[in-house]
């Protein structure tokens, strides 16, 4: 059978091109997502500053969740989990430890006469205690070690590019007012330190700048000569027990670059969501294309049956043919898929969404997954369609006018209704959950189920649509239109096959794009309503030091100044695998500057042992005002707190509001993101702003603005997410568009005979093309209408869940773009493929077999 199948394939490549294209493109998409996921999973940040240190003692950067149960696992947190400075002496006392060096890292900005000094490759600069130079190791190339608070040693590369010399001045801005410092030494290392700018100060200065003198980021362990690293590490673990973690080997990279955890989680989230959508759409496209190709081979199959092949033999032959095509096609899709993954991964890394060192490599797993899923989907499609095809009567081969089978079989009708019901149920679940994120995620799934329902009920839908079109066209004299409509009414299955990919394209693209625009718009709207401050201080650099906040409070005319910092929660409150965003804020006067639309409780009740939650997070946690809950702070520290308030406006802000007193010492960056100011009644905001500008002289990165500037900045920071979303939508659109072109081409080429006859009976080429235009127009029109209807059905409840309004935010320009692009693809594909079908001379075309 395999041999017969192979010979058959070699002889007639035509009918399989459509299936091949669909399978190859689907495979490429699955490979791309798989490789992206794999790259995310395997990404390991490099060890740079700790290159010379075999063992690093850290805090619990990956705390255990669900301890003691079957689901016990470790989840990385995004803030630095610090350890008490007292551990240093305990570590040093362990036999085999030559030196134990405490490390802290504080973001800083350094300016020379030549301008801002940047780290290698434009990376940010951080301050470290001079002792940690031994960890890399850094050696003095010139000058001496710092001895006074205003003395720095800088990395040689930075000194060169930044124009710093020994004895020269520089202006340092870190966790405090800007001060003039002196570069007393330049140090270099042979290790590769490319992702950070290294600056050393005295240990005391570094500790002061960190804002948490009693805590350190990590402790570097230099072993005595001849000590075995693993044994020493074990001894340290015994000594430290639950107080700290001990990292060796590549785990040191995680300890050094904790920002990698968040980026990695982002890639995994993108890869799995996008991958899920892509996989499901791919399988759908493959299944429908293969069904169509089998339908088109009806006559050939009838011939086989006439030559006395049993239905089982026919099914087996079809199955083998499809397996061969599926294998070849899915392998062919690997290279384009890998290219797509490489490009996407690089683009994500460049934008800071994905880990910087993430490497996209070709792995066996994504390829096997792509090939496997293609083949399995193809086989399922063959099983469903092949069964019906093989049962065809042999006499059909001898008939001249192949009529289409009955409009829609009972099995297909029932299946279609069931899937439609499933889609409706999913939608109800999404709306009831009330959580905007899950509602948006489920929206794509719902719309997809509805598309499948339409595909299954296709011929029925097509028949109705064609009848309506016929009624609309009425007794129009246009013969091309008349022919087109007649074709639509009788060839409902063909119409339905043409319709399905367009419905898919419009429905899915619209759902994805407009649930995103609704979310964006709702976020922007909430942002504008949230900030009620008169003035806002923001930072163009590494952050706003608390010292600036204190100064601001002293300015006459400032009634309230609230400092806020962006952070996250650790795994808790029901969000274990996707960590929630949080804001750390001063509680005094917070009601004057932020309007979070608090529905229960009050922000005024916030103290050091309470938090406020967004409605979504409160629902996820199953908590209400007054309840005691256990919250994990950004660095994993667990605290028992009371829920003091529940608010509505969390979109784009954070799902939790943590008082400074509770969480400020559990954040990596000791500086603030913004200061929200309420001016005293009677004081003019402009006057106050002018006074604040004077403070800015001591804090050159400070920007004074109003709440609109704040909103603009927030919008800008969301740009990366918006970009990402657009790219993914475009990729999905391109994929579904390819399916449209592929299907329409398959259909057109199958009609060579019919088109030849039309020409022989006296239709000119342009009349045939006009008929194709009519048909294309109807397919596109009906497809857009149905796809749009599905999108609207899904978007209305989703929009309610996200923004409270049932009207999704769909800017007309974007609607026009989606609709226009879909229409263009459909119409161009029809024209192009009809021209292809018109290529053989009519005389030859009439003789062509299917």
């Amino acid at each position, binding site marked *: 059978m395999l041999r017969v199948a192979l010979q058959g394939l070699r002889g007639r490549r035509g009918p399989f091109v459509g299936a091949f294209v669909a399978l190859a493109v689907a495979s490429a998409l699955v490979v791309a997502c798989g490789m992206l996921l794999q790259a995310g999973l395997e990404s390991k940040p490099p060890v740079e500053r700790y290159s010379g240190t075999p063992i690093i003692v850290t805090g619990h950067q990956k705390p255990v969740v669900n301890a003691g149960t079957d689901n016990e696992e470790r989840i990385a947190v995004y803030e630095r989990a610090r350890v008490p400075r007292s551990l240093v002496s305990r570590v040093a006392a362990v036999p085999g430890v030559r030196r134990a060096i405490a490390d802290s890292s504080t973001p800083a900005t350094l300016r020379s006469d030549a301008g801002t000094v940047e780290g290698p490759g434009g990376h940010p600069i951080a301050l470290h205690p001079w002792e940690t130079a031994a960890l890399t190791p850094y050696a003095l190339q010139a000058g001496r070690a710092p001895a006074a608070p205003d003395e720095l040693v800088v990395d040689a590369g930075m000194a060169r590019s930044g124009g710093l010399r020994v004895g020269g001045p520089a202006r340092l801005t870190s966790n405090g007012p800007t001060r003039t410092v002196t570069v007393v030494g330049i140090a270099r290392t042979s290790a590769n330190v490319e992702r950070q700018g290294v600056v050393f100060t005295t240990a005391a200065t570094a500790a002061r700048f960190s804002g948490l003198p009693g805590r350190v980021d990590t402790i570097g362990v230099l072993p005595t000569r001849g000590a075995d690293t693993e044994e020493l590490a074990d001894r340290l673990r015994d000594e430290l027990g639950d107080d700290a973690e001990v990292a060796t080997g590549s785990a040191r990279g995680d300890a050094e670059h904790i920002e990698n955890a968040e980026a990695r989680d982002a890639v995994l989230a993108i890869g799995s969501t996008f991958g899920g959508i892509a996989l499901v759409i791919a399988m759908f496209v493959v299944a429908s294309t293969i069904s169509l190709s089998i339908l088109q081979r009806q006559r050939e199959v009838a011939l086989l049956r006439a030559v006395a092949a049993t239905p089982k033999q026919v099914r087996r032959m079809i199955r083998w043919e499809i397996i061969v095509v599926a294998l070849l096609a899915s392998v062919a899709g690997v290279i384009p898929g890998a290219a797509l993954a490489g490009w996407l991964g690089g683009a994500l890394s460049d934008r800071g969404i994905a880990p910087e060192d993430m490497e996209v490599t070709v792995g066996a797993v994504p390829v096997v997954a792509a090939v496997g899923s293609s083949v399995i989907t193809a086989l399922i499609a063959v099983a469903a369609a092949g069964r019906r095809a093989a049962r065809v009567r042999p006499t059909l081969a001898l*008939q*001249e*006018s*192949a*009529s289409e089978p009955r409009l829609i079989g009972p099995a297909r009708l029932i299946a279609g209704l069931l899937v439609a019901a499933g889609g409706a149920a999913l939608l109800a679940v999404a709306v009831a959950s009330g959580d905007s994120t899950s509602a948006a995620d489920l929206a794509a799934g719902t719309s997809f189920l509805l598309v499948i329902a339409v595909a299954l009920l296709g011929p029925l839908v097509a028949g109705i649509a064609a009848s309506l079109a016929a009624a609309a066209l009425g007794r129009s*004299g246009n*013969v091309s239109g*008349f*022919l087109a409509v*007649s*074709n639509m*009414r*009788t*060839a409902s299955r063909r119409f339905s096959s043409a319709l399905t990919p367009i419905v898919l394209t419009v429905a899915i693209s619209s759902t994805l794009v407009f649930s995103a625009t609704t979310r964006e718009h709702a976020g922007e709207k909430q942002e504008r309503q949230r900030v009620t401050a008169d003035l806002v201080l923001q930072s163009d650099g590494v952050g706003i030091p608390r010292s600036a906040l204190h100064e601001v409070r002293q300015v006459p005319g400032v009634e309230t100044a609230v400092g806020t910092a962006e952070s996250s929660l650790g795994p808790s409150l029901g969000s274990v695998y996707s960590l929630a965003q949080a804001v750390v804020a001063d509680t005094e006067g917070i009601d004057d500057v932020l309007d979070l639309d608090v529905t229960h409780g009050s922000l005024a009740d916030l103290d050091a042992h309470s938090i406020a939650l967004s409605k979504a997070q409160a629902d996820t946690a199953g908590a209400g005002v007054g309840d005691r809950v256990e919250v994990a702070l950004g660095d994993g520290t667990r605290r028992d707190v009371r829920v003091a308030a529940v608010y509505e406006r969390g979109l784009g802000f954070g799902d939790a509001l943590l008082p400074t007193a509770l969480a400020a010492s559990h954040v990596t960056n000791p500086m603030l993101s913004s200061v929200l100011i309420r001016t005293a009644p009677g004081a003019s905001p402009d006057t106050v702003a002018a006074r604040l500008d004077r403070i800015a002289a001591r804090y050159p990165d400070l920007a004074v603005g109003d709440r609109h500037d704040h909103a603009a900045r927030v919008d800008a920071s969301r740009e990366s997410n918006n970009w990402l979303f657009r790219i993914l939508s475009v990729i999905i659109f391109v994929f579904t568009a390819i399916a449209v072109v592929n299907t329409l081409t398959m259909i057109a080429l199958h009609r060579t*005979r*019919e088109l030849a*006859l*039309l*020409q*022989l*009976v*006296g*239709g*000119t*080429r*342009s*009349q045939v093309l006009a008929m194709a235009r009519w048909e294309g127009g109807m397919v596109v029109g009906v497809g857009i209408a149905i796809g749009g209807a599905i999108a609207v059905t899904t978007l209305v409840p989703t929009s309610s869940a996200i923004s409270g309004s049932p009207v999704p935010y769909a800017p007309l320009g974007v609607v026009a773009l989606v609709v226009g692009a879909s229409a263009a693809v459909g119409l161009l594909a029809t024209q192009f493929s009809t021209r292809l079908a018109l290529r053989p*001379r*009519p*005389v030859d075309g*009439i003789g062509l077999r299917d």
Partner: protein
Amino acid sequence: MNSALRDTPAEPLSPTAPQHAVRLDAVRKVYGTGEGSVVALDDLSAGFDSGSFTAVMGPSGSGKSTFLHIAAGLDTPTDGLAWLGGVNLAELNQTELTVLRRERVGFVFQAFNLMPSLTVSQNISLPVRLGKARLDRDWMSQVVTRTGLQDRLGHRPSELSGGQQQRVAIARALVTRPDVLFADEPTGALDTRTSREVLGLLREIVDSTGQTIVLVTHDPMAAAHADRVVFLADGRVAGSLEAPSADAVAERMAHLGD
């Protein structure tokens, strides 16, 4: 081999001679190039009077289908000229040829004649609609009556028997009152009785309306319905027969190429 053919003139006739509905002059058709080229027609000259019913016969490979395609303007000769209703086909472009065919030629194929999505009535009137001309309803109902399709007008091809489908094809070929009706093995797929009915219909149409019909066939019985049979062999005219009987035709066919 070559008996005197009434239609091969000593000197070339004026191309506008009205009695020739179809005329081919030294037509040569070669497919392909170089080594693999095939000569389908080789210096073929023939003319067909208006109002005549001519059968063109020959063994397979004799070029009769190619001859038909060129005469009907569906294909262009490599060499030589073809006239249809006094029009030199070489002077027309594709669109003009199509329009000419639509108005002046009727064509019945052996199979796949009908648009599957149209009813019998719509199939018959299709050439007129394509020409955006007004349908002559009287003529159409005459045609429908002659072909015996009055009860089938609303049916689709899939609901008709082979013979009925061919009758619809003939009706369509007639509805524009063409100069010539070409039929390429129209009874090839039909049983004897239905074949006879279809051929009898063609005969009757020629007799009662003066329609010119050129019928390509390999069946002597079919050829016997015609006024005259022209024999083709190896791309050339190889003789003709007036008032043929099935036996005479069969006899001639057996000796073609001697």
